[in-house]
């Protein structure tokens, strides 16, 4: 290698090394909080100034999962709350997608004056545009009047409204990204509007629509403020048990936190796979 080539390759190695170090630091910053939670969830006794717990065990895990019952630990069986959160999230996703997919398609494809489109989209944005506590306090008072307070239905409704904020924007933008000529070509060749939608537009929109569904799902799993106001005292979701535990019992809270993260991580992995396959058939310019 000539002198110039050697110095170029050295520069390259140096740059790559710095990149890798920065990436590791980035990963550390990203996962450090979870790492800390992981340790806490298996800590039986951990007092300052020890860097690591003095005694570790899965007791809090077993208690949380309802496998053992040890009154001294202060942890309770959170599995019912977990299933409730999951159940609510699934119902919320289904209903939200049933609303936001047609809504997104209409806002994107149909000939509506731009101003009306803008107004509708802003309307869908409003639930998030205001400070959350006053909004949900108001909602709680309204629900009280119609008897929806403290019911699962009430909580589902709240999650849907919040979920639609994201869902409608994402689906609209997804359908916007599909050139209208693709559907027109299908119709010119003999396909009805429905067929053109289901065979052409929908498959191409799938990645964005799936992203929207994932968003709504995660948002519902983690939703706290609205659920707190509307759900108490009868509806207890996982974030609410986390809230109750976080003040007094760090180990227990850590267990719940990780339980909450599990569906999200599973979803992320599934979406990765799904999105990769879909993008191979991505929309051309």
């Amino acid at each position, binding site marked *: 290698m000539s002198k110039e080539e050697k110095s170029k390759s050295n520069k390259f190695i140096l740059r790559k090394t710095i990149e890798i170090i920065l990436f590791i630091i980035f990963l550390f910053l990203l996962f450090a909080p979870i790492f800390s939670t992981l340790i806490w969830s298996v800590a039986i006794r951990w007092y300052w100034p020890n860097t690591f717990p003095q005694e570790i065990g899965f007791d809090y895990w077993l208690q949380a999962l309802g496998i053992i019952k040890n009154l001294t630990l202060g942890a309770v069986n959170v599995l019912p709350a977990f299933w409730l959160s999951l159940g609510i999230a699934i119902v919320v996703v289904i209903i939200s997608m049933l609303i936001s997919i047609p809504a997104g398609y209409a806002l994107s494809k149909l000939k509506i004056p731009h101003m009306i489109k803008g107004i509708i989209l802003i309307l869908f944005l409003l639930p998030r545009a205001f400070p959350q506590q006053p909004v949900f306090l108001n909602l709680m008072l309204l629900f009280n009047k119609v008897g929806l307070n403290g019911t699962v239905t009430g909580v589902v409704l709240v999650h849907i409204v919040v979920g639609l904020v994201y869902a409608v924007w994402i689906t609209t933008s997804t359908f916007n990204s599909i*050139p209208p*000529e*693709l559907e*027109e*070509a*299908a*119709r*010119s*060749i*003999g*396909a*009805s*509007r429905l*067929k053109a939608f289901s*065979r*052409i537009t929908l*498959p*191409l929109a799938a990645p964005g629509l799936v992203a929207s569904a994932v968003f709504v799902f995660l948002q519902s799993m983690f939703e706290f403020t609205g659920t707190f106001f509307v759900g108490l005292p009868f509806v207890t979701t996982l974030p609410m048990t986390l809230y109750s535990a976080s003040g007094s019992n760090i180990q227990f809270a850590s267990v719940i936190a990780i339980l909450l993260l599990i569906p999200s991580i599973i979803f992320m992995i599934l979406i990765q796979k799904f999105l990769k396959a879909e993008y191979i*058939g*991505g*929309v*051309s*310019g």
Partner: protein
Amino acid sequence: MAVLKVEGLSKRFGSVQAVDNIYFEVKDGQVLSLLGPSGCGKTTTLRCLAGFEMPDKGKIFLDNRDISYLTPEQRGIGMVFQNYALWPHMTVYKNLFFGLQIRKFEKGEIEEKIKRALSIVRLSGYEDRYPRQLSGGQQQRIAMARALVIEPDIMLLDEPLSNLDAQLREEMRFEFIELQRKLGITAIYVTHDQAEAMVISDKIIILNQGRVVQIGTPREIYSLPQNRFVAGFIAVTSFIEGVVNDIEKGDMIVIKTEDNILIHGIRSGLQIGDKVSVAIRINTVRFINGDTEKKESKNIFEGNIVQASYLGDIIDYRIRLGKWTIRTDSNAQITYQVADRVHIYLPPEELIITPEEA
């Protein structure tokens, strides 16, 4: 027997009258081009024919069937889009399969038709490729094949070659002509490229601001433009404006410009005092040497070269004549420099005179 008849087609968008009372007919096996500058209404007209826009007024007949307000899928047309609109999540085979499947052909027949369509556009063997794996020209040919494979009554093409580079565009033009002749397809072709329209069309409709300006064969549009707009739209044309000063026998007229240049031209039906435009095509100007000067007496002018562009086989000159600039192509053997003084001859019979519109 006319295949397509358009009567009084009008379409308005807000305050813009995009299509204004258009009438035309296309016979079986003809290629009709809708030609005009941007915003002239050609694309809107095509979309009304396709069914993506509903006309405000007027009727469209396809083989005596009133299709004016039918949905696109009910019309029996095949359409080729400017950016091909191939479905990216389907292979070439599936792209062609889609339309045939809707028409409920037998599987064996479908395979036959697809094979034949691909061989016509010379892309046999490309069944399993995805659109993103094809070049621009190949995508365009598949888009054609997709429209052809369903054997439509009429084909609509919306600037199908605009996205291709110049050389490919010319090649594809000739391929289209061959294809059209071989299959005898009736086609309506939208383009803003007048050279393209001239090459492929049996008939050209010139549109401007939503209205039909002239309908004719390429030859008629070129040699007998109805007004200055049409004269200037086709080919490279320079203009000299003036007033009819004198009328000699045999429809020979003398035009005087405001800087007192006298030009002879041939046009009937004019009177002294009429304002006219003299259209000079790029191949009209003749450079003069001593001999020609003695033969002709009219239309010999002295001017200055203001620009000379070398194009390899020809040189494109701009010549200043009084206050007018005339463009001409001449073969590269004749070389003048900028500021050279030249003598030119404009054969009166080659000048196209159009009167000013009222």
